[in-house]
C-alpha cells in the first residue's frame, strides 16, 4: 500500500483517465453534433397515433423519448411532431393545438400507412398527411388542378397547389437508397436556400454567404498588416525595449476578450469612425446613418483586429524556422535587406503565412460575441454582395452562421423545431472550422518537414 502510493501509481491512473476523459468528451461532442445534425435531414418513417380511443388516427413523426421523473415512478413518454398542418378549428382541444405533443406509448398505433406523405412547402411549413388518389377526388370534386390532394388532421381533403410545394415524399415506402437521395436533396436545399418562417425552417445560405464574405474581407484587411508586422518583429526590429513593448502588445492583443474587442469596434469604429464618415461623405442621408451603424466593414475590421495576433504569431514562427543561412546567402550575393526579405524570406515562409491566415479565418468564423455588436443581424434582407453597383456593400448588415445558430436556438418561438435545426447549423459551422484548422495543421507539418530538408 505504501509502495503503491510512493511510486505514484494512483496519480498515473488519475492523469491517464483525465486525458481519456478530455479526449472522450471532445469526441463525444463531435459525434453527437454529427449524428444529431445528420438526423435533421434523414427521412424517418411517419407513425400513426390516436389521441383518444375513438379518435381518428393521425400522422406524426417521433422526435424522441422523454422520461418524466416528476412523479415517483419514471414515466416514458414520446415527443411527437404533428407538423404545421394543424389549424385552430380542427384541433381537438386548445391544449393539444401545438405542433408538439407528448404521447404515452399505448397511444401509438402499430401500423405505418404506406400512403403517408411528408410535404415541404415553399414557405417553410412541413405537413404530414395521407396522400389521396387524385382521380378519386376529382370524381367527387370535378375539378382538375395540378397539385397534391392531401388528407390532413382535419377530415376534408385539401388541395395543395403545385407551386406551393417544394418537395414531398412518402417516408414509409422509401427504400434505403431513396432515403439517401432525399437526405442529399434536403442537405442541398439547406445549404442553398434562404431561411423562412421565423428562421426556424428553410436553408442557411445567407448565413453561410455572409460568413464567407465577412471572413474574406477580414482576411484582406488582416493579411498584409499581420505579415508586415511579423516581418518587422523578426527581420527589422532591433533588440530594445520598444520591440519588447510591441511584442507584449501583440500577446496582450491576443488575450483581449473578443467581446471587449466588439465593444471597441462598436464604440470606436462604428460610432466614432463611422459617424465621422457619415458627416463627411453621406451628410445628405443623415440622420439615417450609412456607416455610422454596425455593418459588414466594421465587423470585418473588428475581427481583423482580433485575429491580427494569430497571423503575426504564425508568420513569425515561420520566419524564425527559416534557416539563417538562407538570409546570409542572399546578403552575400549583394542583395539589400528588402530584396532578401521579399525574394528569399517571404516566398519560403509563405506557407506559414497561409497557416496564420487560415487560423485567423477559422477563429473569425467561430466568433459570435463581437459580431453581435458590430453588424450581424438575425435576418438580413439583402446579401452583402450583389449585382448592384458597387457590388460589395460594406455598410450592409449581414447574417452569420454562429449568430444564426444562437438566434435560432434562443430566440426561436418553437424550441423543438429549432433544436434539430440548430444541430444541423452547428454541424455545418463545426465542419467548416475543423476543416480550416486541419488544413492549417497539415500545412504547418509540411512546412516543418521542408525546412528540415533545407537546413
Amino acid at each position, binding site marked *: 500500500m505504501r509502495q503503491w502510493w510512493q511510486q505514484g501509481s494512483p496519480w498515473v491512473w488519475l492523469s491517464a483517465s483525465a486525458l481519456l476523459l478530455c479526449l472522450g468528451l471532445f469526441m463525444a461532442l463531435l459525434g453527437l453534433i454529427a449524428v444529431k445534425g445528420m438526423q435533421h435531414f434523414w427521412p424517418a418513417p411517419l407513425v400513426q397515433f390516436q389521441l383518444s380511443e375513438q379518435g381518428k388516427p393521425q400522422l406524426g413523426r417521433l422526435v424522441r423519448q422523454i422520461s418524466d421523473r416528476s412523479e415517483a415512478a419514471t414515466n416514458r413518454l414520446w415527443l411527437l411532431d404533428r407538423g404545421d398542418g394543424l389549424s385552430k378549428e380542427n384541433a381537438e382541444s386548445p391544449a393539444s393545438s401545438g405542433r408538439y405533443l407528448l404521447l404515452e406509448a399505448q397511444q401509438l398505433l402499430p401500423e405505418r400507412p404506406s400512403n403517408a406523405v411528408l410535404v415541404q412547402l415553399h414557405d417553410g411549413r412541413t405537413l404530414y398527411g395521407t396522400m389521396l388518389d387524385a382521380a378519386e377526388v376529382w370524381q367527387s370534386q370535378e375539378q382538375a388542378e395540378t397539385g397534391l390532394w392531401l388528407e390532413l388532421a382535419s377530415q376534408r381533403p385539401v388541395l395543395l397547389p403545385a407551386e406551393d410545394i417544394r418537395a414531398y415524399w412518402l417516408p414509409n415506402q422509401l427504400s434505403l437508397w431513396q432515403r439517401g437521395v432525399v437526405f442529399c436533396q434536403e442537405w442541398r436545399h439547406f445549404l442553398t436556400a434562404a431561411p423562412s418562417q421565423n428562421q426556424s425552417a428553410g436553408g442557411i445560405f445567407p448565413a453561410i454567404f455572409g460568413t464567407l464574405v465577412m471572413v474574406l474581407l477580414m482576411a484582406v484587411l488582416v493579411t498584409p498588416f499581420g505579415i508586415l508586422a511579423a516581418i518587422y518583429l523578426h527581420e527589422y526590429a532591433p*533588440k530594445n525595449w520598444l520591440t519588447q513593448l510591441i511584442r507584449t502588445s501583440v500577446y496582450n492583443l491576443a488575450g483581449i476578450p473578443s467581446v471587449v474587442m466588439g465593444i471597441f469596434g462598436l464604440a470606436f469604429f462604428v460610432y466614432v469612425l463611422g459617424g465621422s464618415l457619415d458627416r463627411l461623405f453621406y451628410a445628405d442621408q443623415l440622420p439615417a446613418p450609412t456607416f455610422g451603424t454596425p455593418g459588414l466593414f466594421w465587423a470585418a475590421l473588428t475581427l481583423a483586429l482580433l485575429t491580427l495576433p494569430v497571423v503575426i504569431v504564425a508568420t513569425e514562427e515561420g520566419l524564425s524556422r527559416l*534557416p539563417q*543561412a*538562407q*538570409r*546570409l*546567402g*542572399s*546578403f*552575400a*550575393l*549583394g*542583395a*539589400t535587406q528588402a*530584396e532578401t526579405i521579399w*525574394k*528569399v524570406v517571404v516566398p*519560403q515562409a509563405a506557407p506559414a503565412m497561409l497557416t496564420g491566415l487560415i487560423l485567423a479565418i477559422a477563429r473569425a468564423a467561430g466568433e459570435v460575441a463581437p459580431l453581435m455588436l458590430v453588424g450581424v443581424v438575425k435576418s438580413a434582407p439583402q446579401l452583402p454582395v450583389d449585382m448592384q453597383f458597387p457590388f460589395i456593400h460594406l455598410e450592409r448588415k449581414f447574417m452569420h452562421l454562429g449568430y444564426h445558430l444562437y438566434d435560432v436556438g434562443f430566440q426561436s418561438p418553437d424550441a423543438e423545431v429549432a433544436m434539430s435545426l440548430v444541430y444541423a447549423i452547428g454541424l455545418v459551422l463545426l465542419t467548416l472550422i475543423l476543416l480550416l484548422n486541419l488544413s492549417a495543421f497539415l500545412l504547418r507539418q509540411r512546412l516543418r518537414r*521542408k525546412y528540415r*530538408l*533545407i537546413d
Partner: protein
Amino acid sequence: MQTAMPTTMQTKVAIRDFSLWFQHQQVLDSIELTIPPNQVTALIGPSGCGKSSLLRAMNRMNELMIDCRNQGQVLLDGQNIYQPETDVARLRCRVGMVFQKPNPFPKSVYDNVAFGLRLQGERSRRRLDEQVESALKQVGLWSEVKSRLHQNALTLSTGQQQRLVIARAIALQPEVLLLDEPASALDPISTLKVEELIYELKATYTVVIVTHNMQQAARVSDYTAFLNQGRLVEWAATHTIFTQPASQQTEDYITGRFG
C-alpha cells in the same frame, strides 16, 4: 606579431589595425593583414580565434549580427569599405562569399545562379543564359546539371550544392571570393573537387579561405595567416609557415599540439 613579407607586393585587400567586438566581447584585436591579388590566402587557427569574423569583416557580413562594433580600416583597392557612404550591397557584389554549409535557395539550379545577376538588374534572357552557363562551367558543374537546370537545387548532392553556391557567387564576377570552410561539410571526393576548383579560381579572383584543415591550407593556399584569440600571430607565404614558422604558437598549432 611577426610578419616576414616582401614589402613590394601588390595589395588587393588591406586590413589596418582592425578590431571587432560582439556585444562586450572582443573578437578581433588590431589585425594588420594584406591580401595579395590573384592569390589564395588561407586563414587558420583554433576554433573561436576569430578567423571567420575576420573573413566576414571583408564584406561587412558581421553587421548582420546583433550588437557588433568595429574599429580600424579594411581597404579594398585602397578604399575603406567601412566608410559610411559605402554601398554595402555593391560591396558584397565585389566581394563574394561562400559558407561552410551549402545554402542554395529552394529554387531551380538556374534561378540560384541567376539570382545575383537579376538583383543587378540583368533582364536579358540571353545574357543570363550565357553567364549562368559560364559560371557553372567554371565550377565544373555544367556537364552534371545542364540537363536539369530547372530542377530544384535541393535535389543536388551536397558536393554539387557547394559548387553551385560557388557558381552563384562567381556569376557576379566578384573581385574577391571569401570561402568560409567551404569543404568542411563535404565528403573527401567532393572536397577534392572543390580544392581543385579553388586552385583554378585564383587565376581570375583573389581568394580568401578559412579552413580548419591544415593539409587543405597547405595544398591550396599561397599565403597563410595564423590567428589565435583574436590576434594575428603570423602571416607569411604558405611554405614558409609550414616549414619554418617564426612563432612557437604557430609551430604548436600546425604540428597539432593544440587547436
